[in-house]
Protein backbone atom coordinates (compact mmCIF):
# COMPACT_ATOMS: atom_id res chain seq x y z
CA UNK A 1 0.00 0.00 0.00
CA UNK A 2 2.75 2.38 0.97
CA UNK A 3 4.54 1.64 -2.27
CA UNK A 4 1.47 2.29 -4.32
CA UNK A 5 0.81 5.56 -2.52
CA UNK A 6 4.19 7.06 -3.33
CA UNK A 7 4.80 5.17 -6.56
CA UNK A 8 4.83 8.17 -8.88
CA UNK A 9 6.69 10.44 -6.47
CA UNK A 10 9.37 7.76 -6.07
CA UNK A 11 9.52 7.28 -9.80
CA UNK A 12 10.09 11.00 -10.37
CA UNK A 13 12.81 11.08 -7.75
CA UNK A 14 14.46 8.04 -9.29
CA UNK A 15 14.49 9.70 -12.70
CA UNK A 16 16.05 12.87 -11.31
CA UNK A 17 18.62 10.88 -9.38
CA UNK A 18 19.44 8.76 -12.39
CA UNK A 19 19.93 11.81 -14.58
CA UNK A 20 22.10 13.49 -12.00
CA UNK A 21 24.21 10.37 -11.67
CA UNK A 22 24.70 10.45 -15.41
CA UNK A 23 26.38 13.79 -14.93
CA UNK A 24 23.59 16.23 -15.57
CA UNK A 25 23.11 19.40 -13.58
CA UNK A 26 20.23 19.52 -11.08
CA UNK A 27 18.39 22.17 -13.08
CA UNK A 28 18.73 20.17 -16.31
CA UNK A 29 17.37 17.07 -14.60
CA UNK A 30 14.43 19.06 -13.28
CA UNK A 31 13.69 20.43 -16.73
CA UNK A 32 13.79 16.96 -18.26
CA UNK A 33 11.50 15.69 -15.52
CA UNK A 34 9.12 18.57 -16.26
CA UNK A 35 9.08 17.62 -19.94
CA UNK A 36 8.33 14.01 -19.01
CA UNK A 37 5.53 15.20 -16.77
CA UNK A 38 4.01 17.31 -19.55
CA UNK A 39 4.20 14.38 -21.94
CA UNK A 40 2.47 12.19 -19.36
CA UNK A 41 -0.27 14.77 -18.92
CA UNK A 42 -0.80 14.99 -22.66
CA UNK A 43 -1.07 11.21 -22.89
CA UNK A 44 -3.33 10.87 -19.89
CA UNK A 45 -5.57 13.65 -21.14
CA UNK A 46 -5.96 12.06 -24.56
CA UNK A 47 -6.81 8.63 -23.17
CA UNK A 48 -9.04 10.19 -20.58
CA UNK A 49 -10.98 12.08 -23.21
CA UNK A 50 -11.55 9.00 -25.28
CA UNK A 51 -13.09 7.41 -22.22
CA UNK A 52 -15.01 10.57 -21.36
CA UNK A 53 -16.66 10.94 -24.73
CA UNK A 54 -17.61 7.30 -24.72
CA UNK A 55 -18.97 7.67 -21.19
CA UNK A 56 -21.04 10.72 -22.06
CA UNK A 57 -22.52 8.97 -25.05
CA UNK A 58 -23.29 5.92 -22.95
CA UNK A 59 -24.84 7.94 -20.15
CA UNK A 60 -26.92 10.06 -22.50
CA UNK A 61 -28.02 6.88 -24.21
CA UNK A 62 -29.04 5.25 -20.96
CA UNK A 63 -30.95 8.32 -19.86
CA UNK A 64 -32.75 8.32 -23.18
CA UNK A 65 -33.51 4.60 -22.94
CA UNK A 66 -31.00 3.82 -25.65
CA UNK A 67 -27.89 1.71 -25.45
CA UNK A 68 -25.46 4.27 -26.81
CA UNK A 69 -22.47 3.09 -28.82
CA UNK A 70 -22.42 -0.70 -28.69
CA UNK A 71 -20.94 -1.97 -31.91
CA UNK A 72 -17.20 -1.45 -31.72
CA UNK A 73 -15.58 -3.55 -29.08
CA UNK A 74 -17.23 -4.60 -25.84
CA UNK A 75 -19.95 -2.05 -24.97
CA UNK A 76 -18.72 0.08 -27.84
CA UNK A 77 -15.60 1.28 -26.06
CA UNK A 78 -13.69 1.70 -29.31
CA UNK A 79 -16.32 3.95 -30.82
CA UNK A 80 -14.46 7.14 -29.90
CA UNK A 81 -11.24 5.81 -31.37
CA UNK A 82 -13.02 4.99 -34.61
CA UNK A 83 -14.53 8.48 -34.61
CA UNK A 84 -11.13 10.01 -33.96
CA UNK A 85 -9.61 8.09 -36.87
CA UNK A 86 -12.47 9.18 -39.08
CA UNK A 87 -12.04 12.81 -38.06
CA UNK A 88 -8.28 12.66 -38.52
CA UNK A 89 -8.55 11.35 -42.03
CA UNK A 90 -11.30 13.74 -42.99
CA UNK A 91 -10.67 16.55 -45.42
CA UNK A 92 -9.80 19.77 -43.66
CA UNK A 93 -12.24 22.25 -45.13
CA UNK A 94 -11.39 25.92 -44.75
CA UNK A 95 -14.04 28.19 -46.22
CA UNK A 96 -12.66 30.75 -48.66
CA UNK A 97 -13.91 33.86 -46.92
CA UNK A 98 -12.45 33.09 -43.52
CA UNK A 99 -9.70 34.94 -41.76
CA UNK A 100 -7.29 32.08 -42.41
CA UNK A 101 -4.72 32.64 -39.67
CA UNK A 102 -7.25 33.15 -36.92
CA UNK A 103 -9.43 30.34 -38.18
CA UNK A 104 -6.54 27.91 -38.16
CA UNK A 105 -5.02 28.87 -34.83
CA UNK A 106 -8.23 29.08 -32.80
CA UNK A 107 -8.58 25.35 -32.04
CA UNK A 108 -4.89 25.07 -31.24
CA UNK A 109 -5.07 28.00 -28.84
CA UNK A 110 -8.10 26.44 -27.20
CA UNK A 111 -6.48 23.06 -26.66
CA UNK A 112 -3.24 24.61 -25.38
CA UNK A 113 -5.12 26.69 -22.86
CA UNK A 114 -7.13 23.77 -21.63
CA UNK A 115 -4.00 21.63 -21.32
CA UNK A 116 -2.30 24.40 -19.35
CA UNK A 117 -4.98 24.04 -16.70
CA UNK A 118 -3.56 20.65 -15.72
CA UNK A 119 -0.24 22.11 -14.67
CA UNK A 120 -1.34 23.04 -11.17
CA UNK A 121 -3.72 20.20 -10.37
CA UNK A 122 -2.39 17.98 -7.56
CA UNK A 123 -3.20 14.51 -8.82
CA UNK A 124 -2.00 12.98 -5.63
CA UNK A 125 -0.01 13.79 -2.55
CA UNK A 126 2.86 15.90 -3.92
CA UNK A 127 1.95 15.07 -7.46
CA UNK A 128 1.25 18.46 -8.98
CA UNK A 129 3.41 19.23 -11.99
CA UNK A 130 4.13 22.66 -10.60
CA UNK A 131 2.88 23.13 -7.07
CA UNK A 132 2.18 26.82 -7.56
CA UNK A 133 1.47 28.96 -4.53
CA UNK A 134 -1.28 30.74 -6.42
CA UNK A 135 -2.69 27.58 -7.94
CA UNK A 136 -6.36 28.54 -7.77
CA UNK A 137 -5.72 31.98 -9.19
CA UNK A 138 -3.62 30.45 -11.96
CA UNK A 139 -6.38 28.05 -12.82
CA UNK A 140 -8.97 30.81 -13.06
CA UNK A 141 -6.83 33.24 -14.99
CA UNK A 142 -5.64 30.69 -17.55
CA UNK A 143 -9.16 29.35 -17.84
CA UNK A 144 -10.42 32.82 -18.64
CA UNK A 145 -8.22 32.87 -21.75
CA UNK A 146 -10.42 30.20 -23.32
CA UNK A 147 -12.84 32.93 -24.29
CA UNK A 148 -10.29 34.31 -26.69
CA UNK A 149 -10.09 31.02 -28.52
CA UNK A 150 -13.85 30.91 -28.96
CA UNK A 151 -13.84 34.53 -30.02
CA UNK A 152 -11.15 33.77 -32.56
CA UNK A 153 -13.15 30.84 -33.88
CA UNK A 154 -16.30 32.93 -34.11
CA UNK A 155 -14.61 35.85 -35.79
CA UNK A 156 -12.32 33.88 -38.03
CA UNK A 157 -15.14 31.77 -39.46
CA UNK A 158 -16.71 34.88 -40.98
CA UNK A 159 -20.10 33.38 -40.37
CA UNK A 160 -22.96 35.09 -38.63
CA UNK A 161 -23.89 32.05 -36.62
CA UNK A 162 -20.32 31.72 -35.45
CA UNK A 163 -20.13 35.38 -34.52
CA UNK A 164 -23.35 35.14 -32.55
CA UNK A 165 -22.00 32.09 -30.78
CA UNK A 166 -18.76 33.87 -29.98
CA UNK A 167 -20.60 36.91 -28.70
CA UNK A 168 -22.72 34.72 -26.47
CA UNK A 169 -19.74 32.87 -25.11
CA UNK A 170 -17.96 36.12 -24.26
CA UNK A 171 -20.97 37.59 -22.50
CA UNK A 172 -21.48 34.36 -20.63
CA UNK A 173 -17.87 33.78 -19.62
CA UNK A 174 -17.36 37.32 -18.42
CA UNK A 175 -20.51 37.24 -16.33
CA UNK A 176 -19.90 33.85 -14.80
CA UNK A 177 -16.25 34.32 -14.02
CA UNK A 178 -17.12 36.68 -11.20
CA UNK A 179 -19.40 34.36 -9.20
CA UNK A 180 -16.94 31.56 -9.91
CA UNK A 181 -14.08 33.51 -8.38
CA UNK A 182 -16.18 34.68 -5.44
CA UNK A 183 -17.37 31.17 -4.68
CA UNK A 184 -13.83 29.84 -4.73
CA UNK A 185 -12.71 32.79 -2.63
CA UNK A 186 -14.93 31.63 0.23
CA UNK A 187 -13.12 28.30 0.22
CA UNK A 188 -9.77 30.02 -0.02
CA UNK A 189 -10.66 32.15 2.97
CA UNK A 190 -11.23 29.07 5.11
CA UNK A 191 -8.17 27.26 3.84
CA UNK A 192 -6.07 30.40 4.07
CA UNK A 193 -4.12 29.53 0.97
CA UNK A 194 -4.33 29.64 -2.79
CA UNK A 195 -2.16 26.56 -3.09
CA UNK A 196 -4.23 23.59 -4.17
CA UNK A 197 -2.29 21.05 -2.12
CA UNK A 198 -2.76 23.22 0.96
CA UNK A 199 -6.47 23.46 0.28
CA UNK A 200 -6.71 19.69 0.01
CA UNK A 201 -4.77 19.25 3.21
CA UNK A 202 -7.05 21.73 4.97
CA UNK A 203 -9.93 19.33 4.26
CA UNK A 204 -8.42 16.61 6.40
CA UNK A 205 -11.30 16.60 8.84
CA UNK A 206 -14.25 17.85 6.87
CA UNK A 207 -14.89 18.52 3.22
CA UNK A 208 -15.49 22.13 2.31
CA UNK A 209 -18.73 21.22 0.60
CA UNK A 210 -20.21 20.89 4.08
CA UNK A 211 -18.68 24.11 5.34
CA UNK A 212 -19.56 26.06 2.22
CA UNK A 213 -22.73 24.58 0.69
CA UNK A 214 -23.84 27.91 -0.77
CA UNK A 215 -20.46 28.51 -2.34
CA UNK A 216 -20.54 24.99 -3.74
CA UNK A 217 -23.91 25.48 -5.42
CA UNK A 218 -22.99 28.86 -6.90
CA UNK A 219 -19.63 27.49 -7.96
CA UNK A 220 -21.20 24.50 -9.61
CA UNK A 221 -23.64 26.64 -11.58
CA UNK A 222 -20.92 29.07 -12.61
CA UNK A 223 -18.61 26.22 -13.56
CA UNK A 224 -21.28 24.66 -15.76
CA UNK A 225 -21.61 28.00 -17.50
CA UNK A 226 -17.85 28.38 -17.82
CA UNK A 227 -17.64 24.96 -19.41
CA UNK A 228 -20.35 25.84 -21.92
CA UNK A 229 -22.23 22.73 -20.98
CA UNK A 230 -25.97 22.35 -20.97
CA UNK A 231 -28.14 24.01 -19.79
CA UNK A 232 -25.68 26.81 -20.48
CA UNK A 233 -24.33 25.64 -23.85
CA UNK A 234 -24.95 29.03 -25.42
CA UNK A 235 -21.95 29.29 -27.75
CA UNK A 236 -22.80 26.00 -29.39
CA UNK A 237 -26.59 25.81 -29.08
CA UNK A 238 -27.28 23.48 -32.01
CA UNK A 239 -30.98 24.21 -32.08
CA UNK A 240 -30.51 27.95 -32.36
CA UNK A 241 -27.11 28.67 -33.81
CA UNK A 242 -26.67 25.48 -35.80
CA UNK A 243 -23.31 24.91 -34.13
CA UNK A 244 -22.41 28.38 -32.94
CA UNK A 245 -18.74 29.16 -33.00
CA UNK A 246 -17.94 25.72 -34.42
CA UNK A 247 -20.25 25.98 -37.43
CA UNK A 248 -17.54 26.23 -40.05
CA UNK A 249 -15.13 23.75 -38.53
CA UNK A 250 -14.76 20.22 -39.73
CA UNK A 251 -12.48 17.28 -39.41
CA UNK A 252 -9.61 17.48 -36.99
CA UNK A 253 -10.01 21.17 -36.20
CA UNK A 254 -13.53 20.52 -35.06
CA UNK A 255 -12.32 17.52 -33.09
CA UNK A 256 -9.71 19.69 -31.38
CA UNK A 257 -12.46 21.94 -30.07
CA UNK A 258 -14.25 19.01 -28.60
CA UNK A 259 -11.05 17.61 -27.23
CA UNK A 260 -10.47 20.94 -25.52
CA UNK A 261 -14.02 21.07 -24.18
CA UNK A 262 -13.69 17.67 -22.61
CA UNK A 263 -10.22 18.51 -21.34
CA UNK A 264 -11.73 21.54 -19.65
CA UNK A 265 -14.53 19.43 -18.31
CA UNK A 266 -12.17 17.04 -16.60
CA UNK A 267 -10.00 19.87 -15.29
CA UNK A 268 -12.95 21.72 -13.80
CA UNK A 269 -14.35 18.53 -12.30
CA UNK A 270 -10.97 17.87 -10.75
CA UNK A 271 -10.91 21.43 -9.40
CA UNK A 272 -14.36 20.88 -7.90
CA UNK A 273 -13.12 17.75 -6.23
CA UNK A 274 -10.06 19.57 -4.94
CA UNK A 275 -11.89 22.60 -3.67
CA UNK A 276 -14.95 20.97 -2.17
CA UNK A 277 -14.54 17.22 -1.89
CA UNK A 278 -11.15 16.77 -0.33
CA UNK A 279 -9.21 16.29 -3.55
CA UNK A 280 -6.88 13.32 -3.40
CA UNK A 281 -7.71 12.51 0.20
CA UNK A 282 -9.51 9.27 0.78
CA UNK A 283 -9.24 5.99 2.59
CA UNK A 284 -7.87 2.65 1.35
CA UNK A 285 -6.93 3.63 -2.18
CA UNK A 286 -3.74 5.49 -3.11
CA UNK A 287 -4.19 9.23 -3.36
CA UNK A 288 -3.69 9.42 -7.12
CA UNK A 289 -6.74 7.24 -7.64
CA UNK A 290 -9.05 9.26 -5.45
CA UNK A 291 -8.94 12.43 -7.48
CA UNK A 292 -9.95 10.79 -10.79
CA UNK A 293 -12.70 8.87 -9.02
CA UNK A 294 -14.14 12.01 -7.48
CA UNK A 295 -13.73 13.95 -10.71
CA UNK A 296 -15.56 11.25 -12.66
CA UNK A 297 -18.45 11.25 -10.23
CA UNK A 298 -18.72 15.03 -10.55
CA UNK A 299 -18.56 14.71 -14.29
CA UNK A 300 -21.46 12.27 -14.25
CA UNK A 301 -23.48 15.00 -12.56
CA UNK A 302 -22.50 17.37 -15.35
CA UNK A 303 -23.70 14.81 -17.90
CA UNK A 304 -26.88 14.22 -15.99
CA UNK A 305 -27.69 17.93 -15.92
CA UNK A 306 -26.97 18.39 -19.58
CA UNK A 307 -29.20 15.55 -20.69
CA UNK A 308 -32.11 16.62 -18.55
CA UNK A 309 -32.46 20.36 -18.72
CA UNK A 310 -33.55 22.66 -21.52
CA UNK A 311 -31.25 25.45 -22.55
CA UNK A 312 -31.63 28.65 -20.60
CA UNK A 313 -32.31 31.86 -22.48
CA UNK A 314 -29.45 34.27 -23.00
CA UNK A 315 -30.93 37.24 -21.14
CA UNK A 316 -32.09 35.04 -18.27
CA UNK A 317 -28.62 33.64 -18.08
CA UNK A 318 -27.09 37.09 -17.73
CA UNK A 319 -29.74 38.24 -15.29
CA UNK A 320 -29.24 35.11 -13.23
CA UNK A 321 -25.54 35.74 -12.95
CA UNK A 322 -25.70 39.43 -12.16
CA UNK A 323 -28.87 39.52 -10.11
CA UNK A 324 -28.73 36.23 -8.26
CA UNK A 325 -25.34 34.57 -8.25
CA UNK A 326 -23.17 37.64 -7.58
CA UNK A 327 -25.24 38.99 -4.67
CA UNK A 328 -25.48 35.51 -3.18
CA UNK A 329 -21.76 34.87 -3.46
CA UNK A 330 -20.98 38.32 -2.05
CA UNK A 331 -23.27 37.72 0.90
CA UNK A 332 -21.67 34.32 1.39
CA UNK A 333 -18.25 35.98 1.41
CA UNK A 334 -19.34 38.47 4.06
CA UNK A 335 -20.81 35.75 6.25
CA UNK A 336 -17.73 33.57 5.84
CA UNK A 337 -15.48 36.49 6.70
CA UNK A 338 -17.47 37.38 9.81
CA UNK A 339 -17.58 33.80 11.05
CA UNK A 340 -13.86 33.34 10.47
CA UNK A 341 -13.12 36.60 12.27
CA UNK A 342 -15.11 35.67 15.34
CA UNK A 343 -13.77 32.12 15.46
CA UNK A 344 -10.26 33.48 15.56
Amino acid at each position, binding site marked *: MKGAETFFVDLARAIVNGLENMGMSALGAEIILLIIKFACIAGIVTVNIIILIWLERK*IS*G*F*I*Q*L*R*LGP*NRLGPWGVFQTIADAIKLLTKEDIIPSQTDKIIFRTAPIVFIIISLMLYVVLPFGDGMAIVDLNLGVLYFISVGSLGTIALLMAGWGSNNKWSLLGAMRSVAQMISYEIPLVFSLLAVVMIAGSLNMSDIVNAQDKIWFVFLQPVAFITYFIAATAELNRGPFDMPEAEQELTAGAYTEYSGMRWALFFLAEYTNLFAVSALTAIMFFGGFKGPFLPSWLWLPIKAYIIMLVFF*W*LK*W*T*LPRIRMDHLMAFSWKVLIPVTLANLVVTGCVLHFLK
Partner: protein
Amino acid sequence: MWGSGILKGLGITFKHLWERKITEQYPEERPKLYPRFRGRLMLNPEKCIVCGMCVKSCPNNVLSFTEARLKESKKKVLTSYTIDHQYCMFCNLCVEACPTNGLYFSHDFEWAAFKREDIKTVYEPDLTGLELLALEEGEKKSAEKEAEDKLLKGVNAMIAAIKKNPARALSKVVESEEEALKLSEILGDDESKIKKLAELMVSDKEKAAKVAKAFLIKGQKKEQEG
Protein backbone atom coordinates in the same frame (compact mmCIF):
# COMPACT_ATOMS: atom_id res chain seq x y z
CA MET B 1 -40.67 26.90 -7.98
CA TRP B 2 -37.17 27.36 -6.63
CA GLY B 3 -35.72 24.52 -8.54
CA SER B 4 -38.16 21.84 -7.43
CA GLY B 5 -39.25 21.35 -11.04
CA ILE B 6 -35.66 20.92 -12.12
CA LEU B 7 -35.11 18.36 -9.39
CA LYS B 8 -38.22 16.45 -10.44
CA GLY B 9 -36.93 16.34 -14.00
CA LEU B 10 -33.55 15.15 -12.77
CA GLY B 11 -35.35 12.46 -10.81
CA ILE B 12 -37.08 11.24 -13.96
CA THR B 13 -33.91 11.05 -15.98
CA PHE B 14 -32.16 9.33 -13.08
CA LYS B 15 -34.92 6.75 -12.91
CA HIS B 16 -34.69 6.07 -16.61
CA LEU B 17 -30.93 5.71 -16.42
CA TRP B 18 -31.40 2.31 -14.81
CA GLU B 19 -34.43 1.17 -16.77
CA ARG B 20 -34.50 -1.45 -19.45
CA LYS B 21 -33.61 0.06 -22.80
CA ILE B 22 -36.28 0.24 -25.44
CA THR B 23 -34.27 0.34 -28.62
CA GLU B 24 -34.16 -2.66 -30.90
CA GLN B 25 -30.70 -3.94 -31.76
CA TYR B 26 -31.77 -4.24 -35.34
CA PRO B 27 -29.69 -6.73 -37.31
CA GLU B 28 -29.69 -9.22 -34.45
CA GLU B 29 -33.14 -8.42 -33.16
CA ARG B 30 -35.84 -8.46 -35.81
CA PRO B 31 -38.70 -5.99 -35.53
CA LYS B 32 -42.12 -7.38 -34.79
CA LEU B 33 -44.24 -6.95 -37.87
CA TYR B 34 -48.00 -7.08 -37.87
CA PRO B 35 -49.85 -9.23 -40.41
CA ARG B 36 -50.93 -6.23 -42.43
CA PHE B 37 -47.44 -4.76 -42.66
CA ARG B 38 -46.80 -3.39 -46.12
CA GLY B 39 -43.33 -4.34 -47.21
CA ARG B 40 -42.39 -5.08 -50.78
CA LEU B 41 -45.21 -5.25 -53.29
CA MET B 42 -45.28 -8.68 -54.89
CA LEU B 43 -47.20 -10.42 -57.64
CA ASN B 44 -48.23 -13.98 -57.90
CA PRO B 45 -48.10 -14.30 -61.71
CA GLU B 46 -50.12 -17.50 -61.70
CA LYS B 47 -53.11 -15.69 -60.29
CA CYS B 48 -52.92 -12.80 -62.74
CA ILE B 49 -55.77 -12.68 -65.22
CA VAL B 50 -54.34 -9.67 -67.04
CA CYS B 51 -57.34 -7.46 -66.34
CA GLY B 52 -55.29 -4.30 -65.82
CA MET B 53 -57.26 -3.12 -62.81
CA CYS B 54 -54.10 -2.69 -60.80
CA VAL B 55 -52.56 -0.40 -63.40
CA LYS B 56 -55.70 1.69 -63.49
CA SER B 57 -55.88 1.97 -59.73
CA CYS B 58 -52.28 2.95 -59.16
CA PRO B 59 -51.89 6.67 -58.43
CA ASN B 60 -48.25 6.83 -59.34
CA ASN B 61 -47.70 4.62 -62.42
CA VAL B 62 -45.75 2.00 -60.53
CA LEU B 63 -47.18 -0.94 -62.39
CA SER B 64 -46.98 -1.89 -66.04
CA PHE B 65 -47.35 -5.14 -67.96
CA THR B 66 -47.38 -6.69 -71.40
CA GLU B 67 -49.82 -9.30 -72.55
CA ALA B 68 -50.52 -11.76 -75.30
CA ARG B 69 -53.31 -14.13 -76.32
CA LEU B 70 -53.18 -17.87 -76.47
CA LYS B 71 -53.58 -19.14 -80.00
CA GLU B 72 -56.29 -21.66 -79.28
CA SER B 73 -58.48 -20.32 -76.53
CA LYS B 74 -57.79 -16.63 -77.19
CA LYS B 75 -57.23 -16.31 -73.46
CA LYS B 76 -55.06 -13.42 -72.35
CA VAL B 77 -51.74 -14.35 -70.76
CA LEU B 78 -49.16 -12.25 -69.01
CA THR B 79 -45.85 -11.96 -70.78
CA SER B 80 -44.14 -9.61 -68.35
CA TYR B 81 -45.08 -7.57 -65.31
CA THR B 82 -42.98 -4.71 -63.95
CA ILE B 83 -43.24 -3.13 -60.52
CA ASP B 84 -41.17 0.05 -60.31
CA HIS B 85 -40.77 0.21 -56.57
CA GLN B 86 -39.21 3.65 -56.44
CA TYR B 87 -42.57 5.27 -57.09
CA CYS B 88 -44.62 3.01 -54.84
CA MET B 89 -46.52 4.77 -52.04
CA PHE B 90 -47.70 1.56 -50.35
CA CYS B 91 -51.27 2.80 -50.50
CA ASN B 92 -52.70 -0.68 -50.99
CA LEU B 93 -55.03 0.52 -53.77
CA CYS B 94 -53.74 -1.98 -56.32
CA VAL B 95 -54.03 -4.83 -53.86
CA GLU B 96 -57.62 -3.86 -53.20
CA ALA B 97 -58.31 -3.55 -56.90
CA CYS B 98 -56.93 -6.96 -57.83
CA PRO B 99 -59.88 -9.32 -58.28
CA THR B 100 -57.86 -12.50 -57.76
CA ASN B 101 -55.62 -11.36 -54.89
CA GLY B 102 -52.60 -11.81 -57.11
CA LEU B 103 -50.94 -8.71 -55.75
CA TYR B 104 -49.87 -8.63 -52.14
CA PHE B 105 -47.44 -6.92 -49.78
CA SER B 106 -44.72 -9.13 -48.41
CA HIS B 107 -43.03 -8.49 -45.08
CA ASP B 108 -39.69 -7.79 -46.67
CA PHE B 109 -38.46 -4.34 -45.69
CA GLU B 110 -34.73 -4.62 -46.42
CA TRP B 111 -34.59 -2.94 -49.76
CA ALA B 112 -31.07 -1.67 -50.19
CA ALA B 113 -29.88 -2.13 -53.75
CA PHE B 114 -26.66 -1.10 -55.41
CA LYS B 115 -28.00 -0.48 -58.88
CA ARG B 116 -30.86 1.62 -60.04
CA GLU B 117 -32.23 -1.22 -62.15
CA ASP B 118 -32.49 -3.40 -59.08
CA ILE B 119 -35.22 -1.22 -57.70
CA LYS B 120 -37.59 -2.65 -60.30
CA THR B 121 -39.06 -6.09 -60.02
CA VAL B 122 -39.84 -7.73 -63.36
CA TYR B 123 -41.90 -10.90 -63.54
CA GLU B 124 -41.57 -12.95 -66.70
CA PRO B 125 -43.72 -16.05 -66.50
CA ASP B 126 -42.47 -19.15 -68.22
CA LEU B 127 -44.50 -19.39 -71.44
CA THR B 128 -42.62 -22.19 -73.19
CA GLY B 129 -44.89 -24.73 -74.72
CA LEU B 130 -47.74 -22.31 -75.19
CA GLU B 131 -48.56 -21.11 -78.65
CA LEU B 132 -49.08 -17.42 -78.49
CA LEU B 133 -51.08 -15.31 -80.82
CA ALA B 134 -50.21 -11.77 -81.63
CA LEU B 135 -47.40 -11.75 -79.18
CA GLU B 136 -45.71 -9.16 -81.28
CA GLU B 137 -48.76 -7.01 -81.41
CA GLY B 138 -49.00 -7.21 -77.68
CA GLU B 139 -45.40 -6.27 -77.34
CA LYS B 140 -45.72 -3.46 -79.76
CA LYS B 141 -48.12 -1.83 -77.41
CA SER B 142 -45.10 -0.45 -75.75
CA ALA B 143 -43.68 3.02 -76.01
CA GLU B 144 -43.76 3.32 -79.79
CA LYS B 145 -47.31 2.31 -80.23
CA GLU B 146 -48.42 4.40 -77.34
CA ALA B 147 -46.76 7.49 -78.76
CA GLU B 148 -48.37 6.79 -82.13
CA ASP B 149 -51.75 6.39 -80.54
CA LYS B 150 -51.32 9.56 -78.61
CA LEU B 151 -50.34 11.48 -81.71
CA LEU B 152 -53.32 10.13 -83.61
CA LYS B 153 -55.62 11.06 -80.78
CA GLY B 154 -54.19 14.57 -80.68
CA VAL B 155 -54.54 15.00 -84.42
CA ASN B 156 -58.15 13.84 -84.37
CA ALA B 157 -58.91 16.22 -81.54
CA MET B 158 -57.28 19.04 -83.45
CA ILE B 159 -59.24 18.28 -86.59
CA ALA B 160 -62.43 18.31 -84.58
CA ALA B 161 -61.44 21.60 -83.02
CA ILE B 162 -60.68 23.17 -86.38
CA LYS B 163 -64.00 22.06 -87.73
CA LYS B 164 -65.91 23.20 -84.70
CA ASN B 165 -64.39 26.58 -84.06
CA PRO B 166 -61.86 27.38 -86.75
CA ALA B 167 -61.12 30.91 -85.64
CA ARG B 168 -60.06 29.87 -82.18
CA ALA B 169 -58.18 26.75 -83.14
CA LEU B 170 -56.29 28.33 -85.97
CA SER B 171 -55.41 31.53 -84.16
CA LYS B 172 -52.58 29.57 -82.58
CA VAL B 173 -50.69 29.29 -85.86
CA VAL B 174 -51.42 32.70 -87.37
CA GLU B 175 -50.94 36.17 -86.00
CA SER B 176 -54.46 37.54 -85.75
CA GLU B 177 -58.01 36.33 -85.59
CA GLU B 178 -58.84 37.84 -88.98
CA GLU B 179 -56.13 35.79 -90.55
CA ALA B 180 -57.45 32.73 -88.78
CA LEU B 181 -60.89 33.32 -90.23
CA LYS B 182 -59.40 33.79 -93.66
CA LEU B 183 -57.40 30.62 -93.29
CA SER B 184 -60.45 28.66 -92.30
CA GLU B 185 -62.22 29.99 -95.42
CA ILE B 186 -59.31 28.91 -97.54
CA LEU B 187 -59.20 25.48 -95.98
CA GLY B 188 -62.90 25.11 -96.37
CA ASP B 189 -63.93 21.48 -96.41
CA ASP B 190 -60.68 20.20 -97.76
CA GLU B 191 -60.13 17.24 -95.44
CA SER B 192 -56.63 16.46 -96.57
CA LYS B 193 -55.46 20.01 -96.06
CA ILE B 194 -57.02 20.21 -92.61
CA LYS B 195 -55.48 16.92 -91.65
CA LYS B 196 -52.07 18.00 -92.81
CA LEU B 197 -52.25 21.23 -90.87
CA ALA B 198 -53.61 19.54 -87.75
CA GLU B 199 -50.79 16.98 -87.84
CA LEU B 200 -48.26 19.73 -88.05
CA MET B 201 -49.94 21.71 -85.29
CA VAL B 202 -49.69 18.76 -82.95
CA SER B 203 -46.16 17.75 -83.78
CA ASP B 204 -44.34 20.87 -84.96
CA LYS B 205 -45.87 24.26 -84.21
CA GLU B 206 -43.29 26.33 -86.07
CA LYS B 207 -43.69 24.37 -89.26
CA ALA B 208 -47.44 24.61 -88.91
CA ALA B 209 -47.17 28.39 -88.71
CA LYS B 210 -45.07 28.40 -91.86
CA VAL B 211 -47.50 26.18 -93.71
CA ALA B 212 -50.41 28.29 -92.55
CA LYS B 213 -48.70 31.36 -93.90
CA ALA B 214 -48.10 29.60 -97.18
CA PHE B 215 -51.78 28.68 -97.34
CA LEU B 216 -52.71 32.27 -96.67
CA ILE B 217 -50.46 33.64 -99.38
CA LYS B 218 -51.73 31.05 -101.79
CA GLY B 219 -55.30 31.92 -100.91
CA GLN B 220 -54.64 35.62 -101.37
CA LYS B 221 -53.11 34.96 -104.74
CA LYS B 222 -56.15 32.92 -105.73
CA GLU B 223 -58.38 35.74 -104.53
CA GLN B 224 -56.47 38.27 -106.60
CA GLU B 225 -56.58 36.03 -109.62
CA GLY B 226 -60.23 35.30 -109.02
